[in-house]
Structure formats: C-alpha cells, structure tokens
C-alpha cells in the first residue's frame, strides 16, 4: 500500500508533471512565474486547495453523485466545491494568518479558475474510482500533482529571472521567449517519462 502511494506521488510530481507533460494550469504558470517569492506563495496556495478539493470531490462523487445517479453533473458540482473551498481558504487566512493572506491576496481568487485543480478532481474520480482504499490514492494523487505544479512554477521562476537580462529579437520578448524556455525545461522533464514501474 505504502509503495503504491509513493509510486503515485513520484509519478504525479515528475513523470506526469502537470505543467510540463499534461498542460494543466499553464495560465497561472506563465502569469505568476516572474518572481520566485510569489511563485512559492502561489504554488503553496494551490497545493493546499488541490489536496483538500481532491479529497472533497472524491467523497462527493462517491457518496452523493453516484448513489443518486447524477454523475453527469460532476463538472458542475466540482467547480462549486472548488469555488467554495477557495472562498473558505480566503476567509480562514484573513482571520488566522493575515500576513500570508496579504502576501497571497490577489492569487487566491485565481485558484478557482486554475484548470489544474478541476483537472486533478476529474482525474481523481476517473482513475481511482471505487472503494475507500482508492480514496487514499486519489488524495495522494492530488497532493503529488500539486507538488509537481509547485516544483515546476518555482523552477521556472528561476529560469525567468535569468531571461530578464537576455536580449531577444523584439518579436520574441515576453511570452514567446518564456514559452520556448518552458519547452526546453519540458525536454528535461521528458527524460522522466522513460521511467516506468
């Protein structure tokens, strides 16, 4: 059981990295990766929301949507859960850890429309459907995918810091250069895809 969970974790972080191999959450990845400090903040906030929403949506699907035959409403139900969680996290941080709330401020609402969160919830129910034993796998999967997102965004913030001093042709300035650099990082990540267990 433990080995299986560790494998799911490792696969989610490296082999099937959300940014570099599955393209979930590329918008916030390109938007917030300009500075390493904010990248860490955004990555941590996403990790928190994704892990909790992964657990909550799995339970909702298994114990509400499946028994009532409402599985076709999964997207709608999950996005509401995610929006509510983000709102709750916002209120919690505002009350309990105001310093972190101020630091993350504008990034919190953005998490609702981060497709990594909804993507992890939908993959969680399709890949780990069934008994409660799969519940642990689904939660570990969500957590690992979020760590992969955090890893990618922090790593790439370092790369973009170096790109600031580069002098590309005018047409390549900004996003095109960032995309091509992300492509080079993705080549490095594709090395992991050779690892199969």
């Amino acid at each position, binding site marked *: 059981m433990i080995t299986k969970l560790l494998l799911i974790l490792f696969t989610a972080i490296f082999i099937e990295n959300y940014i570099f191999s599955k393209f979930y959450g590329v918008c916030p990845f*390109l938007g917030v990766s300009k500075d390493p400090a904010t990248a860490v903040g955004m990555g941590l906030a996403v990790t928190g929301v994704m892990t909790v929403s992964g657990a909550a949506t799995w339970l909702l699907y298994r114990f509400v949507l499946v028994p009532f035959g409402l599985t076709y409403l999964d997207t709608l139900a999950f*996005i*509401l859960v995610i929006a509510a969680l983000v709102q709750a996290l916002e209120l919690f941080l505002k009350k309990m850890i105001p310093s972190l709330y101020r630091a993350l401020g504008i990034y919190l609402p953005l998490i*609702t429309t981060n497709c990594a969160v909804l993507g992890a919830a939908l993959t969680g129910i399709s890949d780990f459907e069934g008994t409660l034993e799969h519940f642990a796998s689904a939660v570990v999967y969500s957590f690992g995918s979020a760590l992969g997102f955090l890893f990618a965004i922090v790593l790439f913030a370092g790369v973009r810091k170096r790109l600031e001093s580069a002098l590309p042709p*005018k047409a390549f300035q900004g996003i095109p250069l960032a*995309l091509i650099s992300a*492509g080079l990082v993705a080549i490095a990540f*594709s090395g992991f895809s050779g690892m199969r267990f």
Partner: protein
Amino acid sequence: MKKYLEILKDAAITKNPTFVQLLGMCPTLAVTTSLLNGLSMGVAVTVVLICSGTIISLLRRLIPDSVRIASYIVIISAFVTAVQLVIRAYLPAVDAALGIFIPLIVVNCIVLGRAEAFASKHTPGEAAVDGLGSGLGFTVALALVGFVREFLGSGTILGGTPLELAIPFAKPMLFFVLPAGAFVTLGFVIAAVNALRRASEKRRFEKEKKL
C-alpha cells in the same frame, strides 16, 4: 449591422484571445497535436462562448454583483456539460482525443474573461456576436498551431501524407507532437504573429506621417 461587424472584428482579430490576450493557454498547448483536434476544440469553445455570453447578458440585471463570478461559472459549466454530452453521444472519436479538456472548458479563462469583460455589460445580440468572434479567433489560433505541429511532427495534413510526397526521404520530427514541442511551437507562432503586428503598425504609422 456595422456595429456587429465591428464587434466581430474586435473580438476575433484586434483582441485575439490567444495571440493578443494570451488567454486559454492550456488547451492551446494540450490538444493541438493535430489540426483536426485543434479545430474541434475551437468549435466546442465557440459554442460555449456564444451560449453562455447570450444567457449571461440576458441575466445581467438580475445577478447580484457580489456573486457574479460564481453565477457565471454555473451558467458556463451547464453549457460545457451539454456540449460534452453531445460530443460523447455523436462524436466519440473527438471525445477520446480531447478527453478531459472538454470539461476543463469551464475554467478556460477566455470564457470567463468574455463573460466578465463583455457579456455582463452589453445586449444579448452583441454578446453573442462577441462570443462568435472570440471563438473564431481562438479556433483559428488552435488550427494554426495544430497544423504546424501535425505537419512537422507527424508529416500529415488532416491525416493525409503530403510531407513525404512533397519532399522524398523527409522524415517527420516526433519532437513537435511531444509536450516540449507544444511550448516551442506556440512560442514561435506567437513571435511570428508579433512580428506581423509590429510590421502592420509601422506601415500604418508611416502612412499617417505622410498624410
């Protein structure tokens, strides 16, 4: 009529969602392994944009300001679910190719962006035309990236085999179909569009200077 054409042009070209506003990057990178996949994704998003834009515009005076984003998301996800069920029933091949990226249209920033920036402030007719324009702009962008990746990566156009016919011994480069190729191709396509836009702006500037 002229007003609608203006909205259409503005949404599709001047404010092209992919090339100018840089929104909706996830599907642009993920589903463009072939021209057909790019086109189908573009059409699906266009349908959602038109329907959700019209409904949000009709309800714009009823939705309280504080819960507007949540309301938009519910309206959008209803249409996404409808589109998903239609595709699954009639086009199973498209459903298999696009997979999870059909439900993920819900969190596509283009759809929510147009709802917030345009549909909530204009009449239903204008909102529908704006949805059509944004959708067309997005579809063209996806088709362009999909065409480049399919031609270079698999050596085909819409599944045919013209690369080997045109250049004997030419071999397709698998790199462009892989995830890394998606980032690199999109980077070069956006850079090319930037170069064209800069050139046309320069021409217009010089024309105005002459006058």
